[in-house]
């Protein structure tokens, strides 16, 4: 298991995880019918992977257009995970991309970024589709 690629659906984001190079991305809209079924296995895989990393360069990119409250709770868990991985000696960069006219997503990114104490946070403006 070095890669996880799940294409986006109407309700769930594209998952693009490459464990071998420590590059991870979530893209699109996220309001899955069953948030636990969708994110549960991914969270487990990430958690056990991060626990085994040492002084690794980890990049996690979010390119989300919309997400619901359940996904927001998942993101909080992910951000905790990033901070823990950074605290244990890894270099973790969290990249939060938002479309240029999407003030909401920019603001949400800022709020999530404030939670991080050890990981680096990058807010990145991208062109709207």
């Amino acid at each position: 298991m070095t890669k996880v690629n799940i294409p986006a659906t109407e309700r769930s984001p594209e998952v693009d995880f490459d464990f071998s190079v420590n590059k991870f991305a979530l893209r699109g809209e996220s309001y899955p019918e069953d948030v636990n079924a969708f994110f549960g296995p991914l969270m487990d895989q990430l958690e056990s992977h991060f626990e085994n990393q040492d002084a690794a360069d980890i990049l996690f990119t979010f390119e989300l257009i919309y997400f619901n409250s359940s996904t927001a709770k998942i993101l909080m868990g992910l951000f905790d995970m990033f901070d823990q991985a950074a605290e244990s000696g890894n270099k973790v960069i969290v990249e939060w991309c938002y479309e240029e006219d999407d003030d909401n997503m920019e603001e949400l990114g800022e709020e999530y970024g404030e939670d991080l104490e050890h990981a680096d946070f990058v807010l990145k403006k991208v062109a709207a589709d």
Partner: protein
Amino acid sequence: MAFEIFNKELEIIDTAKALIETGELSPESQVAYKKLLKDYEKLFKSSKRLVKLSDRNEAELNKVARSLDEKNKMLEKLSVSLSKYLSPQIYDSIFSGDTDVSLSTERKKLTVFFSDLKDFTSTSEDLQPEDLNYLLNKYFTAMTTIALKHGATIDKFIGDAMLLFFGDPKSNGVVEDAKACVRMAIEMQRKMEDLKDMWLNKGFAKPFRMRIGINTGYCNVGNFGSDHRMDYTIIGSEVNLAARLEQSSDTDGILLSAETYALVKDIVDAEERDPIQVKGIARDVRTYAINDIYEGIEDDRRFIHKERPGLTCLLDIDKIPSDQKNDVLNDLEALIKRVKES
């Protein structure tokens, strides 16, 4: 403290912090208590964020709903405008999704109505364009109102002529469709009498006079044309026969084919006329001219014209002001009394 939805949680945090500062807790409890407070603060932060996100998503949703609502209203307005170019039945069946908007036709037994204004060209040449517009609009509005009342599908207006039919997209059965068509035609001719009087009163020396032909038979009905521009219409020799009957009809009259007459003979009094020949129909077509209808549709009329020796009566019920209704009744009763006494 001013009201804030999370005041209670903030108070709990303040109380907990105050307790830590008193130093009353044992060192072990102090560590455990601090950890607990940190987790509580984190949970509180999560709650605030989720509430905020939920409100934000709801606001976005409302914005989208409002914009959809505006678009719907715009589409509704547009469809109302478009509907005036279509027969209501066609409009309804397209907008309800019952009709497939494609180039397809069906063979159905329909009652076809064809009407024309006699000597329209020569009459119209004597009129100013404004007067012609006024007369034509008045004529078409009155006829369309009657057609819709009886459930006709308005196929098209061709100059001064009208092509209507019964039996598609909705049908009440061949007999009822034919009867509805004949009732409509009779009401139209009666309305023409009213219009004729109105026009004469307004000074139009040569009012319009209508001829009507009605036939029942199998036609092809549906969408003809191309994928880019289609026309919902009927074609077939039975349609031509309706047009041919109209040409053979008396002025102010209604001429039926034997097929239609057979379906409506229990509601109309008609006399047989000379048979006609039509291209595409091998047989001679027997024809019937309507004299009268057994059912009363007089009650619905608002404009009544009676002409007998010694009596000319022109009654336009809609024009009687409500406060003068009794005066009109008194006048009429006085007249009745005088006729009775004479």
